């Protein structure tokens, strides 16, 4: 259920057991059969893509960090499905799910992780830095909470230009303890900026449990200090995510008001693939229990099987399609070239990249 509401309401420490079938909430009831299948397709796609990328990482094909979103898929899928023309989205380094949900191709994402020229950032960003401004997706940011003021800035621009829309700014449960985030909460509320902050609370920041990092475990309560509305919900049921996020997004668009949404979710894998110790700071049972009862992929599948949207056969078919697509993306990435060395000094300055007439004065780069 969605633990609620605003300010003074006393709130239970944990969202209570599910009482409500969110699939029948108006915002979800209005979904066509195809739209529901699309939601399923997105969630399956993220899962299969990341499983494939994990294999590639283990084969040494992907460098740096690989932060997997597996277990959290319903959050990005649900929220992105609510986005309208003037809505924008920005997140941290655990960014593959959001990228695929907004419609980035597996090819450009996988190739980016392989460091290839065909990647969405030409291999300049890697796993943590996917961007697609044409899809209103502003990354992919590696510094914890550093993206939160940018999200407020996107929303500020909407309001400045008189556009009706909102910015969805995602962050983790560890990121809430950064000063930049708290400053941004204040600014957003003070200026009535249409930004929705979405805390994807997966219970851990690297190896530190929420209990060990935040004095107040109900993270959404921080909004009270900034006179901001908040709500808490579960993240394993895409229909619950949609119902609760929809309220926040409507409020942001209609009233130009910020909102703090805390979504309780869980990651199955380590913080990054390099985090081999993740069964030391949490128990195997905890992980297995979540997978058994709350797996976002199983939950949406059951919903759609029970309401007749999906058949086992169709589910299998979609699954196979996504596996094939992920496999093909790995092949595409593998076969793609890396960028030529001349790309090292492109995309540094807009003015240099666009100086076709050679009008710029002075030295921009200082190599011997």
């Amino acid at each position: 259920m969605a633990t609620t509401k605003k300010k003074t309401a006393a709130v239970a420490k944990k969202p209570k057991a599910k009482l409500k079938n969110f699939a029948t909430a108006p915002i979800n009831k209005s979904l066509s059969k195809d739209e529901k299948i699309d939601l399923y397709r997105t969630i399956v796609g993220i899962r299969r893509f990341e499983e494939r990328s994990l294999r590639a990482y283990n084969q040494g094909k992907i460098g740096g960090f690989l932060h997997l979103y597996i277990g959290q898929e319903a959050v990005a899928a649900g929220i992105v499905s609510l986005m309208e023309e003037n809505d924008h989205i920005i997140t941290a380094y655990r960014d593959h799910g959001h990228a695929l949900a907004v419609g980035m191709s597996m090819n450009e994402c996988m190739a980016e992780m392989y460091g290839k020229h065909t990647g969405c950032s030409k291999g300049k960003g890697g796993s943590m830095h996917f961007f697609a401004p044409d899809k209103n997706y502003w990354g992919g940011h590696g510094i914890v909470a550093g993206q939160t003021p940018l999200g407020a800035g996107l929303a500020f621009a909407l309001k400045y230009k008189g556009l009706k829309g909102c910015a969805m700014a995602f962050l983790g449960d560890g990121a809430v303890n950064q000063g930049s985030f708290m400053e941004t909460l204040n600014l957003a509320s003070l200026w009535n900026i249409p930004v929705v902050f979405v805390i994807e609370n997966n219970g851990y920041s690297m190896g530190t449990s929420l209990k060990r990092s935040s004095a107040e475990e109900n993270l959404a309560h921080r909004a009270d200090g900034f006179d901001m509305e908040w709500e808490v919900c579960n993240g394993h049921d895409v229909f619950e995510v949609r119902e609760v996020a929809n309220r926040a997004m409507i409020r942001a668009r209609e009233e130009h008001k910020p909102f703090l949404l805390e979504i309780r979710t869980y990651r199955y894998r380590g913080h990054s693939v390099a985090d081999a110790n993740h069964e030391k700071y949490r128990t195997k049972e905890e992980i297995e229990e979540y997978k058994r009862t709350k797996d976002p992929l199983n939950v949406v599948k059951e919903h759609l099987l029970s309401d007749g949207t999906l058949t086992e056969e169709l589910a299998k078919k979609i699954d196979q399609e996504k596996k094939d697509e992920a496999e093909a993306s790995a092949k595409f990435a593998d076969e793609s070239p890396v960028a030529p060395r001349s790309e090292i000094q492109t995309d540094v300055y807009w003015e240099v990249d666009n100086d076709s007439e050679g009008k710029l004065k002075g030295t921009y780069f200082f190599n011997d």
Partner: protein
Amino acid sequence: MPLITYREAIKQALDEEIQRDENVCIMGEEVAQYNGAYKVTEGLWAKHGDKRLIDTPISEAAFSGLAIGASMLGIRPVIEMMFMSFSYVAIDQLFNNGSFCRYMSGGLMNVPIVVRGPANGGTSVGATHSHTPENMVANHPGLKVVCPSNAYDAKGLMKAAIRDNDPVFVMENTLLYGEKWEVPDEEYIVELGVANILKEGTDLTIVSHGRCAMLSLQAAKTLEEKHGISAEVVDLRSIRPLDEETILNSVRKTHRALLVEENKPFCGVDAQISHIIQLKAFDDLDAPIRRVSAIDAPNFYSKELEDWQLPNEERIIEGALKAMA
């Protein structure tokens, strides 16, 4: 030509750009209703209102990041740091997001913001308020930085910075705000990356930027009168991009170089310039390159000592005589 202050020149630039482009807005602490901590924005709020002149809470990280995010969607915020020293609490936003978002997205976005405010010592406000971080900014590819030494340049460079499609830092100077220079009524721009020869000379090249360029000019006059040394004074105006050609041409003519800046010496702007000169004009040099920087310690509070710590006419002349030896 009208004589106007450095402060007034910057204000004119902001005023004209606000009128030229509806996406230009000014954001910062006390910039609107209070008229600016140093009165640079005086009267602009009354003239242009809340949408264009925006008072912020004391949250440099948040409003810097907000400006960067807004610029991605086409807004062109000019953010005021009450002191450039205060940008240090927003370094992640300015140096990571400001400079690298374009790069890490493979060129899918750009960040047309201006970060402006005073970056100088010499006012007895202690070390934390006296930073000159143009060297740190220049160390981040993706950022640009200019240091106007006079009112004419301050106006022209500010307008260029606002129209530029990359993030530009404009380093102002509280000791110059009240000084007057001739500034034409007609509109003009001072392009980034073009240095200015403040005084021609044949015996020694003095390269400087910001207020130190004015001190160098003063010293050059004394060198001429009292020591018979003809010094050429190159005012960089823009640090990154940098006008290497003007520096090198001057050194090739005079064969000696003195570099003067308020920065601390280690990895200061002049460390890079010194490297460029030795690399590209080695055979033209008749003597080692000399530097006059801030004496290498945090800024002293006491006026007498801080005045000695920072480059001043006496220290510049001393440096010039060493360069001539």
